[in-house]
């Protein structure tokens, strides 16, 4: 049998040794509950399984040139990332309950927490959440705990995939979710301020927002704080190579999707939800946290700390139910950032912005193609108005080998002709040129 070491002979000896029979081992299960023969195929050897899966992998189109983002990005991943992350000392370990034999994982998490803080200008980060959407939901729940209030303001420029997740999660809870509408590409200050009151726990915003537009929420943070309201900002970590940080804007909780930091797209996961906050709120933060301390001999070491917040200690009073998180993805992000370094991250962000800017110029020069928003500052995504339905254009461009972008009407019914186009450092000038020609040819 695959992956089982003991031979029939050994099993017999073991049973004899402990004075039990094979039947006795399952004698505690009432007979009528045993299931009999399952209706499924017999096991296959590795060679055949690899053949089957290679065939399935071949049925997925990965030769399209991607201008598709929407919060999930096709960035370059250095080979060394995979070399480290595929070390089985990391990937076959589990939660570092025993610090003496888990210093590798623990120090890596501490360094990851530090990296996230340095990137976002915050003071404390947790050891990861499932993805950007659940991280935003957890930020919202954390704000409710910090403030003891139950109203949350969330803008429509926040990734709609996250917003629908939050709607599901809060269906059975007494939370008032208030939506503000983004019409210009930037959040409408007046709308948000008019909804701020002493029942409000948090304002949730995103930068760059789902439309790719860049903002500075410093003014909103100030007004929010004056009413005891927290500002939670979701951000795109690569953009922080050049963009003003949520910390510098005065955010209280920062979350985001970490997939862009070295994780392949993998059809939706595993990804990485990151979360950072101010020290004063750290005891209300969900998730694992690693801290530095000394061992009995005074040597520096790392341990899981503030565990009294967590489900395995606090049960129904815990800050969150999370147990398994995305530790290996957090390691991936740490290794990716370490390899790029200070300069490499800045250059990567700059490349994204430059290439997006070039693509924007090329595409808006096409007759009938116009920028949708007045706001003109974007990072690596932008919204274009097409002369016809975006979904149709996208379907036609798939035929020509391009994933042209995301049709916004999927979440914004009044944006039927709008397409969200994304450009990463992986796209070349030539690809952008060919894309522009293809787009022009199908309009």
């Amino acid at each position, binding site marked *: 049998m695959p992956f089982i*070491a003991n031979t029939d002979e050994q099993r017999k000896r073991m049973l004899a040794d402990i004075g039990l029979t094979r039947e006795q081992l399952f004698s505690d299960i009432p007979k009528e509950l045993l299931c009999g023969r399952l209706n499924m195929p017999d096991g296959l050897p590795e060679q055949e399984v690899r053949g089957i899966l290679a065939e399935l992998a071949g049925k997925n189109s990965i030769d399209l040139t991607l201008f598709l983002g929407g919060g999930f990005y096709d960035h370059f991943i250095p080979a060394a990332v995979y070399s480290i992350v595929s070390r*089985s*000392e990391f990937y076959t370990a589990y939660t570092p309950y025993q610090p003496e034999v888990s210093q590798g994982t623990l120090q*890596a998490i501490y360094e990851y927490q530090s990296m996230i803080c340095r990137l976002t200008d915050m003071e404390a980060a947790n050891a990861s959440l499932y993805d950007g959407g659940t991280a935003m939901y957890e930020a919202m729940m954390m704000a409710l705990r910090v403030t003891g209030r139950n109203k949350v303001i969330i803008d429509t420029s926040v990734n709609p995939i996250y917003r629908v997740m939050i709607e599901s*999660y809060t269906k059975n809870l007494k939370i008032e979710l208030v939506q503000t509408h983004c019409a210009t590409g930037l959040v409408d200050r007046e709308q948000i301020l008019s909804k701020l009151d002493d029942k409000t726990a948090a304002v949730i915003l995103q930068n760059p927002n789902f439309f790719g537009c860049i903002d500075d929420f410093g003014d909103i943070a100030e007004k929010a704080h004056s009413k005891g309201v927290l500002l939670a900002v979701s951000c795109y970590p690569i953009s922080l190579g050049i*963009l003003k940080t949520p910390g510098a804007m005065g955010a209280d909780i920062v979350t985001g999707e970490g997939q862009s930091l070295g994780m392949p797209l*993998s059809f939706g996961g595993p990804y990485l939800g990151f979360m950072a906050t101010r020290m004063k709120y750290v005891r209300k933060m969900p998730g694992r946290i690693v801290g*530095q301390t000394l061992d009995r001999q005074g040597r520096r070491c790392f341990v899981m700390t503030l565990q009294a917040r967590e489900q395995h200690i606090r049960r129904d009073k815990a800050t969150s139910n999370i147990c398994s998180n995305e530790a290996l993805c957090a390691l991936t992000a740490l290794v990716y950032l370490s390899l790029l370094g200070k300069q490499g991250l800045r250059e990567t962000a700059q490349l994204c912005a430059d290439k997006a800017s070039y693509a924007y110029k090329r595409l808006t020069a096409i007759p009938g193609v116009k920028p949708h928003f007045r706001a003109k500052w974007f990072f690596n995504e932008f919204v274009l108005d097409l002369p016809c339905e975006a979904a149709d254009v996208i379907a036609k461009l798939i035929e020509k080998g391009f994933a042209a972008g995301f049709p916004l009407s999927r979440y914004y019914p009044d944006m039927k002709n709008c397409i969200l186009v994304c450009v990463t450092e992986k796209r070349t000038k030539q690809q952008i040129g060919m894309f522009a020609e293809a787009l022009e040819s199908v309009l």
Partner: protein
Amino acid sequence: MKLIFDKSVPARCGVRPTRSDVASTINIRREFLRDTPAEISELSELDVIRHFTQLSRRNFGVDTNFYPLGSCTMKYNPKVAERIASYPGFAHLHPLLPQLRGGGMLTQGALAVIYEMDMLLREITGMAGFTMQPMAGAHGELAGIMIMAAYHRDKGNKKTTVLVPDSAHGTNPASAAIAGYKVVSVPSNNKGVMDVKALKSALNDEVAGLMLTCPNTLGLFNPHIKEICDLVHSVDGLTYYDGANLNAIVGKARPGDFGFDIVHINLHKTFATPHGGGGPGAGPVGVTEKLLCYLPVSIVVKRDDGTYALEYDRPKSIGYIAPFYGNFAVILRAYVYILMLGREGLIRVAENAVLNANYIRVKLKDYFEQAVNAICKHECVLSPSKKMLEAGVHAIDVAKALIDKGFHPPTVYFPTTVKEAMMIEPTETESKETLDAFIEAMIDIAALAESEPEKIKAAPVTTPVCRPDETAAAKNLDLACL
């Protein structure tokens, strides 16, 4: 070991980003830019590789050491699954593609994996349908309780409470509470399983459901499981099966046949995907026929022409709980594992897991206290003997002494219903030789605890660091190097 930040040298370069082929025109207003670059460490590629290779050597993993961490099912993770997850056809696939018009046909291979996995899990658990979205066991629990809530809302039931046994994983009460329910704990009887009488007295019309692992965290199968499910159903409550311990019965018995309405499976446990130092996992949730309509959006369906598609039109659904289709690369690994094992292989998993656990239990029962003297399933719970405790040697000391003998410790101080608990789960992938060596080490420790307890209290001495000051860590919080 130094932190990566302490190794940084200004202006040192690691991986070079690609050269730019367009003009660099900062098309962004000055005040939207950061003033100074993020203080990311500056290292060469070799510096980075060496740093993390050294860190990796300060870890125990399944590939380096026996790792009998109870309730976590630390079995061998087949390498072929890693290889397949890295196939470009899977790794480079954008999750938004099938949401484009005509895009579904571009991802038929990936959709097939999700669909086929659904079918296999249905057969293995006896449920009517699955969602693959939950990204961990606890996430599956939350999804399951949300489904429970949707069912009661739909029926107009006024339900406020979820029951959990006192021996439950902490995630059970936490998930129920986060979904908006009051949690009531049901005590175990002297045989270590949920007390049917206690359950009866806890049951009333406000009970939305019961969450249960079976076998439970003591490794015991509750023979009254069907009666328990029937009792909960009698107040229109739903039964939730926490699949954390499915490895004990996989291929032999199915939660669906016991009477469970909602089931989650930890793919990283039973189906051998790597635990990653704390994740990622995957926690698909299966339900009975009457609950299918509440499963999250979207679901993969097979059309009459044999192609696969995503179904979004699900008006009674609890909605989205993941951005896409779950932790796809984890689901893929588990799928590979099930294909390799097949029907017969799965039965062997349970049989060998249970044999290995009982082998350890019986061989050690004269040296340690058994939580319950009965046949266990995938794991057994032991405690230090009276003599050991009198000598001042506790479960944590046994755990640390095991480290010096080259073993990852069992789960300690859980379940909390057993004093000084050590929860040992060997899994089916370990050989008799490994188990014998572990048993010998445990017997040595038991003897040493009486003769030279101070040696055990000093353990571990073979590791790069010894016991840390956890109180200081919580008091003088140092959570980041800034």
